[in-house]
């Protein structure tokens, strides 16, 4: 059995990192994150640029505002939770056993990487790959590998970059670290300071029995931690896989392009996370909080699950453009459902069909042009009402053997007038002999009918009509054939369709 091996990840200044993960435009700007209730807000986290400008943790808001060029953001626990889940997901790609050990504003976790050498190579390689994965997700962290859980955890808090501690060298690796990394009880820390103990190496060198006699049995734990010999029972967490990204804005956003800037980054993250699980994004839900307490929610359903960033972003853009939010946006949440990646086997001799993802974008654009309910496939209703149909969304059905009914013989087609044109009809022996619409008079040469239809008497959709097929001549002598309908309920004639 291979010896235990732990990899610790420590992302410091996590509130700032979580906020800047989606705000790439602020990545090179000094940013400080404020926590607390106004007016007693203080800086709880900051990035490197802010530190170089002179900002520091615990600095009051007024003082931080005085630093030129400083961007102040409010802390968001929701964004931090989303970023933390991203970090855990990235870590879960390398080991399913993860224990969260977060401290104050940092996000830390320890991975049990025992036995992963054959999968990912040496621990150092694994750490480099994990760092690259986190960097892609917009997070920065330090890493330490050790055969002792606590040694890895302590080392990663105190150092930057990647540190690999060989087995048996735990005490040496920790010896130069300050006592502050141990989070000792205050009285112990004060006593050790009085004794002149400054580093873990000095603490580890103290004799155990004398230390217990002076500080009590708790001191043994601290000494073992300093020696890198403290045992630990691993308590793995269940890494939850939820595809959700959240961003709240410090000022209400009114421009769609600004939303899409954030949305693009969110889609990137969601697609990358889904891809890491060999999945695709089957649907997206856009959720916005608007000023005035209103909520905006629109689902987006691609024809096929996809991780194509451009395609999903275009769908998002078209959806928001077709249904713009009615007020300024306070926060944007993008959640997704994962689906199996599509794989379609096309036939060599199958007829050409539109590419599903491209068709999605085309139909969204067509809906933006013609209207939401005016693009799709017609479906005949199960009713005797003439001309009744409904529109359904158009999808390309890939089938190896399409149904091949016998082709019908050519029949006279109708061109419907929507809405029907009211006409004045002249009757002779209850048959139309002439009718007039808004523009011209038609002289009827032959009238066939009436064909009486009625139905839905039990609802408001009731109809009771007489239908006439009429051959007529226009004022210029051109023949036309049309359908005249008399609404028997209100005794009104309408020109409903032309034969063509």
């Amino acid at each position, binding site marked *: 059995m291979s010896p235990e091996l732990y990899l610790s990840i420590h992302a410091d200044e996590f509130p700032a990192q979580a906020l800047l993960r989606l705000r790439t435009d602020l990545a090179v700007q000094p940013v400080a994150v404020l926590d607390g209730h106004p007016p007693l807000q203080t800086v709880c986290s900051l990035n490197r640029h802010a530190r170089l400008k002179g900002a520091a943790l615990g600095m009051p808001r007024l003082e931080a505002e005085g630093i030129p060029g400083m961007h102040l953001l409010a802390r968001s626990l929701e964004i931090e939770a989303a970023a933390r889940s991203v970090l855990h997901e990235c870590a879960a790609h390398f080991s399913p056993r993860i224990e969260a050990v977060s401290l104050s504003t940092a996000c830390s976790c320890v991975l049990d990487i025992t036995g992963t050498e054959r999968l990912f190579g040496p621990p150092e390689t694994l750490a480099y790959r994990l760092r690259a994965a986190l960097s892609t997700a917009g997070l920065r962290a330090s890493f330490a590998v050790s055969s002792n859980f606590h040694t890895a955890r302590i080392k990663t808090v105190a150092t930057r970059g990647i540190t690999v501690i060989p087995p048996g060298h735990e005490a040496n690796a920790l010896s130069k670290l300050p006592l502050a990394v141990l989070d000792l009880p205050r009285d112990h820390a004060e006593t050790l300071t009085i004794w002149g103990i400054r580093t873990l190496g000095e603490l580890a060198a103290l004799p155990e029995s004398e230390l217990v006699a002076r500080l009590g049995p708790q001191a043994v734990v601290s000494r073992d931690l300093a020696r890198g010999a403290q045992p630990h029972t691993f308590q793995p967490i269940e890494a939850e896989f939820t595809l959700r990204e959240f961003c709240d804005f410090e000022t209400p956003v009114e421009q769609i392009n600004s939303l899409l800037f954030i949305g693009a980054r969110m889609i990137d993250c969601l697609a990358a996370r889904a891809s890491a699980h060999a999945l695709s994004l089957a649907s997206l839900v856009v959720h916005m909080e608007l000023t005035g307490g209103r909520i905006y929610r629109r689902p987006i359903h691609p024809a096929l699950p996809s991780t194509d960033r451009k395609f999903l972003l275009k769908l998002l853009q078209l959806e928001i453009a077709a249904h713009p939010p009615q007020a300024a946006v306070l926060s944007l949440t993008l959640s997704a459902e994962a689906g199996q990646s599509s794989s379609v086997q096309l036939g060599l001799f199958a007829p050409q069909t539109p590419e599903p993802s491209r068709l999605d974008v085309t139909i969204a654009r*067509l809906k933006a042009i013609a*209207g939401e309910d005016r*693009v799709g496939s017609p479906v*005949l209703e199960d009713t005797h009402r003439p001309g009744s149909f409904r529109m359904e969304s158009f999808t390309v059905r890939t089938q190896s053997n399409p*149904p091949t009914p016998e*082709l*019908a013989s050519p029949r006279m087609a109708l061109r419907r007038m929507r809405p029907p044109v009211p006409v004045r009809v002249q009757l002779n022996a209850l048959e139309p002999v002439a009718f007039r619409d808004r523009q011209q008079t038609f002289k009827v040469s032959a009238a*066939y009918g009436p064909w009486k239809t009625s139905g839905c008497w039990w609802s408001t959709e009731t109809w009771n009509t007489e239908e006439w*097929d009429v051959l007529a001549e226009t004022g210029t002598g051109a023949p036309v054939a049309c359908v005249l309908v008399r609404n028997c309920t209100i005794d009104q004639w309408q020109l409903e369709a032309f034969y063509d």
Partner: protein
Amino acid sequence: MPSASALRIQIEHSLERRFPAALSPIPRTIVETAATSIPEVDRVLNGGLPVGAISEITGPVFSGRTSLALTFLAARTHEGCVCAWVDVHDALDSESAAANGVALRQLLWIRCKNAGPSANPWAPLDQAIRATDLLLQAGGFSALVLDLGSTAPEHGLRIPLATWFRFRQAADRTRCSLLVLAQQPLAQSSAAVVLECAPLKAPSGNQTVLANCGYQLRTSRSANPAPLSIATGQRKPPASTWLATAASQRENRGPLRQVFVSGMVEASA
């Protein structure tokens, strides 16, 4: 005495600057066509409507334009192809489409907004052109019908020739048959085929249903411009008798070829 080939080369060489290969025959390419499922029309069109080109079906109301377009779409959807109908005036009757055999699930119908006769006539036309552009660019549609049948010619003629040229290029690239239903030719030189439709005869009044309506088709830009006539079946009474021998009459108008379809086909020279 120089040989014929030497003489040809000499003439071609002298005219080279103005007419490259003046006397050499232009290599002919086989034009891909899609059958309309009306044998007589296919025969006149040398196999059917061209694929990857614009075909115009023109004529007044009651000239069979819509019937012919639906028959063509029925044939295409019957083969499993996907088609689209860009409806400028929201005039398509889905029942007629289904009765002609169009698989409605494979038909994308774009109903341009038409706020009434008093509304701006350019709005639906603009929508239709943009929609057609999008569909042609998207690709994958075997046939696309741009229905300008109810659009006044003075409006249709305002569509720039550059638009038709763009449509032709896009249709050629995506191998889409673009059918334009209009009252008169609009696409000019961009159209590969122009079918001129006209009502052929009025049915006699001694019957109880409207039937035996005949249509006359004339092709231009075709190797065989001989006129052709088609008669469609009756619409009523109910569907059980729709497949009855509807068009059984035959007219003889001198040199015109009279052809009746729908169950019975007769032809004469």
